[in-house]
């Protein structure tokens, strides 16, 4: 019911105002309503409540329309990164067993090759679908409209506690985990966003990130404000700059790597970005020097967002112009305070709250938390306890109650805002008959934040074959997960219980790569 309520509010506010736009279409709230109704009707035709709908597409407005239509029809949207390889994709699809697929041209081709019997619809045909549905069944449409106006039909909108999306994240186990999101989570996040970011009706928001990613909730938050969500087909710094000017973007969300690339683009010098008021950034720490440069060159205020897909998206924020002073711990980054409705604790390993300045693990709570992981209660139990989600981030409170992040307890690698778990890469590399052992660690990168580096212990020294390792990764892993370096290792260092000692390998990777770069 939340997303259909958002739709209803947008219609009531101004049906002819823009809700969505991309390089192909401008979609008013009136058109969005038509498209959503046509899509919901189509998707519900052969599916029962709770059925999953695979969404395999690059960015386009119809992806967001599909999410809203799934909510309206009581179905569950399962967006999947189109960059995944076939083995990665089929593992997800086989797990969620979708009743239908919505896809762009490239996605349709893959679905028809991999799942020829799965009903599928071209996302490019949505506007046409809505138009013909209206012509052919005007009475039914009017009835639906009457039904909506009088409090909505029997199934229209779903309930707050029904799952509405499954968002897949990289996983500690080497297999993607599906984060089950309900409408209550989307509602909680939107209300936080309206309170702490404050978009207004009509505010043009630039969605530069992929719509299959957890940050998609930010686009839905802007719709909740009756704002206009402007969708980039794919991020390029040149494309983002052109969109800022053409669409007079006022709010944008970028990860720090994107900000750096935008500032490096030649077209920045000739682009009018004067409409931009607020640059929201998250998914990785923003270096202070980059933040200063962004403020100077883009003329916008910056707001830090700290989020986690399992927590329903954004959960903490540092408002613009907040003076935070020196970090309480060298290298720590301030992520602000909990957003409205979000709870936060920092605890020691025994689960006790730590004192101000002491470092512990960050736990978040609130209605935004995920219901769990799809078909993986064990993994959910590891992070969710008594209504609190362990983010595995390490941080502390300062004297003003603000939160500073210091490091991560688990092995997550943040590459340009995308999560990569070493286990996923290690699992692939172990398939080689020439690999005896492997450990993947992060390497600091000025542009991407971090990249994965693979330390490989070959079965015998002469069997270290970089080309073979690279080939395995290209075949089995999405390109953003591919290690930036493969380094041979005599023996993977492990503690007595067999756990790989990653910290010294991080240092060794840094040292080896620095030496290698100095000699080339």
């Amino acid at each position, binding site marked *: 019911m939340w997303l259909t309520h958002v739709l209803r509010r947008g219609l009531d506010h101004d049906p002819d105002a823009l809700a969505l736009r991309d390089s192909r279409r401008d979609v008013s709230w009136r058109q969005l309503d038509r498209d959503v109704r046509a899509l919901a009707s189509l998707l519900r035709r052969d599916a029962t409540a709770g059925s999953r709908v695979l969404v395999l597409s690059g960015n386009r407005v119809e992806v967001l329309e599909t999410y809203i239509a799934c909510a309206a029809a009581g179905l569950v949207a399962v967006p999947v990164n189109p960059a995944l390889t076939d083995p990665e994709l089929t593992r997800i699809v086989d797990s969620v067993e979708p009743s239908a697929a919505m896809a762009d041209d490239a996605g349709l081709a893959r679905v028809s090759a991999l799942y020829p019997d799965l009903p599928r619809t071209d996302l490019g045909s949505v506007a046409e679908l809505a138009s013909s549905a209206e012509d052919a069944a005007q009475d039914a449409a009017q009835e639906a409209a009457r039904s909506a106006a009088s409090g909505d039909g029997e199934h229209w909108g779903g309930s707050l506690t029904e799952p509405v999306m499954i968002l897949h994240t990289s996983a500690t186990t080497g297999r993607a985990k599906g984060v089950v999101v309900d409408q209550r989570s989307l509602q909680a996040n939107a209300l936080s966003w309206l309170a702490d970011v404050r978009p207004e009706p009509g505010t043009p928001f630039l969605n530069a990130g992929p719509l299959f990613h957890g940050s998609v909730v930010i686009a839905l938050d802007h719709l909740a404000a009756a704002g206009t969500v402007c969708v980039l087909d*794919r*991020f390029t710094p040149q494309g983002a700059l052109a969109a800022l000017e053409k669409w007079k973007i006022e709010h944008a969300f970028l990860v720090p790597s994107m900000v750096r690339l935008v500032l490096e683009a030649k077209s920045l010098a*000739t682009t009018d970005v004067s409409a931009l008021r607020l640059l929201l950034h998250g998914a990785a720490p923003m270096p202070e020097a980059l933040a200063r440069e962004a403020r100077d060159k883009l003329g916008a205020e910056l707001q830090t967002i700290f989020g986690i897909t399992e927590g329903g998206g954004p959960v903490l924020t540092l408002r613009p112009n907040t003076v935070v002073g020196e970090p309480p711990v060298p290298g720590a980054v301030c992520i602000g305070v909990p957003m409205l409705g979000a709870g936060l604790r920092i605890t020691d390993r025994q689960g006790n709250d730590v004192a101000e300045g002491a470092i512990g693990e960050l736990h978040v709570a609130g209605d935004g938390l995920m219901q769990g992981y799809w078909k993986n209660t064990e993994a959910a139990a590891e992070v969710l306890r008594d209504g609190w989600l362990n983010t595995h981030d390490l941080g502390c409170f300062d004297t003003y109650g603000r939160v500073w992040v210091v490091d991560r307890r688990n092995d997550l690698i943040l590459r340009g805002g995308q999560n990569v778990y070493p286990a996923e890469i290690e699992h692939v590399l172990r398939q080689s008959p020439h690999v005896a052992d492997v450990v993947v660690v992060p390497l600091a990168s000025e*542009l991407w934040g971090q990249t994965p580096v693979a330390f490989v212990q070959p079965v015998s020294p002469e069997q270290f074959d970089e080309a073979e390792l*690279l080939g395995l990764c*290209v075949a089995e892993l*999405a390109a953003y997960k591919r290690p930036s370096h493969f380094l041979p290792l005599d023996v993977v260092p492990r503690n007595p219980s067999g756990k790989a000692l990653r910290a010294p390998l991080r240092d060794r990777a840094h040292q080896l790569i620095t030496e290698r770069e100095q000699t080339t």
Partner: protein
Amino acid sequence: MSVARTLVRESLDHPALLDRVVDDADLAGAGVNSGELIKLALRLEDHLGRPLGDEELLGLTSVNAVAELLQNGAD
């Protein structure tokens, strides 16, 4: 090695990947990621001394396409 191939190679996190890619192969299909393609575009802008247009950016799909841009794209 051609200038085009050198520019592509310098844009890759793992330059050895290019050893597997022939000049007319689709770079994304061969495993080049979106970030590396962005780096390539920025490198080309530096090389040409001007911003790339939308069509030029979309056309950066292979080493041959990069070579063509270098040949025809200088002002």
